[in-house]
């Protein structure tokens, strides 16, 4: 493959110069996707500036005044900042550990042969289809007996496990996509198993790693049930729980709720966007190397 310089035009190796009218359908499709995706977040942000009565009377109207009262109330009613910080720590840790540890197994499943491989993989993949309601009770008891109830490691462990099957699938597919010749070449050069994995295979699956990390991150970031069941103290509680503070059976504060959602979501979008940029950088470099 020819090397291309990493300039603005240079990385557009696949960009076709086609007549404008031929690009219209693709452009319209992109536009549609953008509109569909932007509507919910815009609606949430708009609502955080409306009064309860406005939110419940006119879904599409614009706010009449922009006051930050909802944000003030959200911060007052729920420990959202504290929970946000906990979420960042727990999500980052569990995502990193999950992707690092589970990729090992994914590699073995994708690239080696051993007896009972398919059976073992099928058993591990079963984790994906055990209903959440069935998990709740036993997981509470396991985590409690391990002495990890209401602790940060407890939640990290559970989130690592919850994302295990997904990471396994994504990374197995990524490793499977790497041409066998590269791996063989490494072995012929006398590289060991560990070296081949960390220095040859892992760098070639950056795209998969990044995708798996994104999935694991988002799943852990939004997880509610185990955060509720496994924690008691504000020191380990996570962001999704804070959103329940604004509606109760006979009372509600929608303005504060949407302010809270905005505060919860905007930083996550930012984290995600930065992360994606990192990912695509590494992809370009990876592709050049390949």
């Amino acid at each position: 493959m020819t090397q291309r310089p990493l300039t603005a035009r240079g990385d557009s190796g696949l960009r076709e110069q086609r007549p404008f009218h031929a690009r219209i359908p693709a452009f319209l499709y992109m536009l549609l996707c953008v509109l569909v995706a932007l509507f919910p977040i815009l609606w949430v942000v708009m609502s955080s500036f409306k009064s309860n009565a406005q939110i419940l009377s006119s879904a599409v109207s614009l706010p009449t005044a922009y006051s930050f009262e909802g944000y003030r109330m959200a911060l007052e009613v729920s420990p959202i900042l504290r929970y946000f910080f906990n979420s960042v720590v727990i999500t980052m840790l569990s995502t990193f550990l999950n992707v690092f540890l589970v990729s090992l197994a994914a590699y073995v499943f994708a690239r080696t042969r051993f007896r009972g491989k398919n059976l073992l993989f099928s058993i591990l993949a079963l984790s994906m289809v055990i209903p959440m309601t069935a998990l709740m009770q036993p997981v509470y008891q396991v985590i409690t007996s391990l002495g990890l109830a209401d602790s940060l490691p407890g939640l990290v462990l559970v989130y690592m496990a919850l994302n295990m099957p997904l990471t396994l699938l994504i990374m197995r597919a990524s490793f499977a996509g790497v041409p066998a010749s590269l791996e063989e070449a490494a072995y012929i050069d006398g590289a060991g198993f560990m070296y081949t994995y960390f220095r040859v295979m892992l760098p070639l699956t950056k795209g998969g790693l990044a995708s798996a990390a994104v999935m694991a991150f988002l799943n852990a970031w939004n997880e509610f049930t185990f955060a509720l069941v496994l924690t008691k103290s504000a020191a380990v509680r996570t962001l999704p729980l804070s959103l329940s503070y604004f509606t109760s059976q006979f009372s509600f504060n929608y303005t504060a709720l949407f302010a809270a959602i905005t505060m919860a979501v905007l930083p996550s979008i930012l984290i995600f966007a930065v992360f994606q940029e990192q990912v695509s950088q590494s992809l370009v470099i990876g592709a050049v190397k390949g």
Partner: protein
Amino acid sequence: MKRILSLLLAVVMVLGLGSALAEIKLDYPTFQVGVNTAAPVIAQLVEEFNALHAGQVVIQVEEIPGDANYIDKIKVLLNAKDLPPVIYGAGYNLLDLALASDLLVDLTPYVEADPEWQAMYNDKALEVNSRDGKIYGSSAEGNTIGYFYNKELFEQAGIAGPAKTWDEFFAQLDTLKAAGITPLSMDTADSAWVTSLWMGALIATSGEAGQAFMAQMMPDDYNTPEVIGALEKIQKMFQEYTTFDAVGGKYENAANAFLSGQTAMIANGPWMIGDFSDTTKAPEGFADKVGVAIYPEGFAYDEPIQGYLVTRQQDSAVEQAAVEMVKYFTGVHAQTVALEKQGMLPASTQVEITQTAKDNFPLLAEFVVALEGAVIRSATTQATMYPNLLDIMSAELPNLASGAMTPEQFAQALTEGAAKNK
């Protein structure tokens, strides 16, 4: 040597004293946080209790925002036989569940040993909190409920005041409708609280059989003329007298319809009074337009709901402390705090309706007067029905409303749902 011995002795004494003084920690998970109207009440009681027992007992609050989340978590803890020392049974019948697994402390000896506590129990409170002659719970809330109406809209339609009979009530609905006013706020989602209040009122006032039905704990048979008769009227209310979004609507939608002056009536308890003067929810001056009434035929919901329960603990000192906490949280002082801060009418007749409460919530004073006219009283259907029926109400009411289901079929669906608890 002597000095060493005396030093050792001193150390032992300090350690011994230390362990005797070790604070007992009471984990208390509660959903009464955040925007829950009882949140300030619970916060104050916890603070007071902790100050009162400083160095001996400390309540550590675990905030579980959202009622449904609370129940989910308590069920997990219940299955794991790992319940916190004090739980709140309200509305979800945790008493029978916990008792079935033999996890509750019998409060009878404690209540009998304390005349003041014993006096807090009236017959109804005793009934909802006892099983087989043993007391397991202590109530704090009266759950006294009527309905609110918009005096301005009533005036516009030429209606003098709240109806005394159902015939008059339905005539008023027609009058309001003819004047271009949507008469009722109703809902179906989240167990259809507002709608089920009308339903219960209709059942309770349909004669002796209806009253008997409402007095039942966990009724099994909904195929009775009283229930079906009430459902017929509920169906009509959905089809003729309420907002378009009542079907599928949550309590929030129903409340907003009333608070924004769209509808003329909403059934709900006095804890809603505070919302009438909350300008993020209602227009300025709305509170002055609201009147309060008991239901037609002299009916009002007025029965304490299942209260605080103490669960079995390995350490009997923790159990003792938990009993103390429950006693404090359901005593005259606690109920007065709830009355004055939240507008919650007390469970016990021992609690005086104070002037402060009447000043804080002028409508409450009006409601207390109206209550004197109540000749039929009962618990809400939600407090007595099997908890799984709450979901069936939400799922099937849209069908009843649209006519896809007859009242008979709806009653049958509830009966079948009840049978699933056998």
